[in-house]
């Protein structure tokens, strides 16, 4: 055996353990997802497995519950992403301007991102509790009426967004802060000489230089927001009146409560297609930015 062949065999011996798991749990699932999407596959009655072509997609397109879930997911993204970017920007600018104690405060605002979503949900459900929650306790002491944080269908979603902001804005602030600190000092000094400081300096110097980082933050969070699920599962269970049941939760319920794997797989592809559009958008904007 030639030494090149030996080296190839030897090299693949190093790759094999990982490659096995990669093929089994990353590549095969993508193929299985495609296979399931064109099948009627119900775990409860194994005999129902049969090729149905694009019928799952046609059914999903007409599914009123899926349309509602898409609206809910879009609503979450529309509330979450702008408020996250603004909050994180405010935190990052504040941190960046601190002459002292920056690392301590950075650690404090970052800390919530270390929490599992389950603990986050438990904590905030306690705060939001109608009768003995912390928020309504404060409101009552101020002489105000208690707010049905999670049981009113117009307030439940903003409540979920507020919890998500506490949970994730510190992490995003850290990313933006790194971007701010990456801007060479001379840009600020030149701007200050030209009389552009404060708010004007931010819009004419800082923000344009930070555009790639902001773009990254917006798109990754948009992609994340479209896969919105555990927060609602824990806080409201998707209620009241399905007002907070997003697409992923509907897919989850279809697959694991109703055991209709084929239909759930088809809906997964539809949501993945929407998410992929954001991914391509990011790729395209970044290339435009670079050139």
């Amino acid at each position: 055996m030639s030494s090149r062949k030996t080296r190839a065999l030897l090299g693949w011996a190093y790759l094999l353990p990982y490659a096995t798991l990669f093929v089994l749990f990353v590549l095969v699932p993508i193929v299985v997802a495609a296979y399931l999407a064109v099948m009627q596959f119900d775990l409860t009655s194994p005999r129902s497995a049969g090729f149905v072509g694009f019928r799952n997609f046609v059914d999903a397109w007409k599914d009123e519950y899926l349309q509602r879930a898409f609206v809910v997911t879009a609503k979450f993204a529309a509330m979450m992403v702008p408020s996250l970017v603004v909050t994180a920007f405010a935190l990052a600018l504040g941190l960046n301007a601190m002459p002292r104690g920056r690392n301590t405060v950075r650690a404090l605002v970052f800390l919530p991102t270390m929490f599992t979503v389950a603990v986050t949900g438990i904590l905030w459900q306690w705060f939001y509790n109608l009768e003995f929650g912390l928020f309504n306790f404060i409101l009552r002491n101020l002489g105000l009426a208690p707010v049905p944080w999670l049981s009113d269908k117009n307030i439940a979603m903003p409540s979920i967004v507020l919890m998500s902001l506490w949970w994730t804005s510190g992490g995003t602030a850290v990313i933006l802060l790194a971007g701010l600190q990456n801007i060479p000092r001379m840009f600020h000094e030149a701007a200050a000489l030209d009389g552009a400081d404060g708010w004007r300096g931010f819009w004419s110097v800082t923000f344009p230089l930070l555009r790639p980082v902001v773009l990254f933050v917006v798109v990754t969070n948009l992609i994340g927001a479209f896969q919105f699920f555990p927060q609602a599962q824990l806080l409201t269970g998707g209620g009241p009146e399905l007002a907070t049941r997003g697409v992923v939760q509907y897919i989850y319920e279809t697959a694991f409560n109703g055991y209709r794997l084929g239909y759930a797989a088809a809906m997964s592809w539809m949501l993945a297609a929407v998410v992929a559009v954001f991914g391509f958008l990011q790729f395209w904007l970044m290339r435009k930015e670079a050139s």
Partner: protein
Amino acid sequence: MKARWILVATMFAVGLLFVAPMVLMVLTSFKPEAEVLNPESAIPRHWTLQNYLDVLNWSEEAPFVRWLMNSVLVSSSVTFLVLVLSSLAAFGITRVRVPGGGAFFYVVVASMMVPGLLFLVPVYFILNSMRLLDTPAALILPAAGGGFGVFLLTQFMRSLPKAIEEAALIDGCSWLGVYYHVSLPLCAPAMATLGVLTFIGSWNDFVGPLVYLDSIQNYTLPVGIALYQASYYTEYGRTLATSAMATAPLLLIFAIFQKQIVESMSSTGLKD
């Protein structure tokens, strides 16, 4: 000058606002049940360990200690597997330079673009046909197949000079010896970051155990405490004691590895 100190004070107040929920969680977990529902004083009037003792006391419906052990088992296995398998793969790609290794790397990186939700149903289907549902392996094996570790270590090894490894080879060291004695120690900083991030991700995973586990005995902490909270939602003292115990290991990790964690987060936006 004065404005700067107002800024520092404001930012500290904001920082305290972010940790306040956690402080309230810990303080309340030391309150007797009668005081929990009465939030007039954040600090317990009568400190008690009763909530912790109740939770640690074995019960069939909420075996907290069992969940804790499951979490430790799953998270350490995932971390160990990811570190070993990804470093071996990165070594094969960058040092042995196996034919097809570069192409394999691109496939791995491309797969990281696929949104996670797409894997939920098919991985369930595959685990079901392998009879692995409702076992720790259902959480460990798919997590070890993820591409992040290979991506991180391959990029890191590519940035290192190959001279030391080549010298070791010429001195008669075997490839495996080079991997173990030269490459691994050189990769220590990247391995530390990868290990910490993997452990945190696995410890906090909620959707995986929710979907792939079935029996209460097999739950990990996040799903266990969510279930506990759903069935005993009025006993906030105990629920918060479980939450505090589930979070404590992470706070310890954060205290030790703060620099790595924050830096890895910082660099995510800068590279591309």
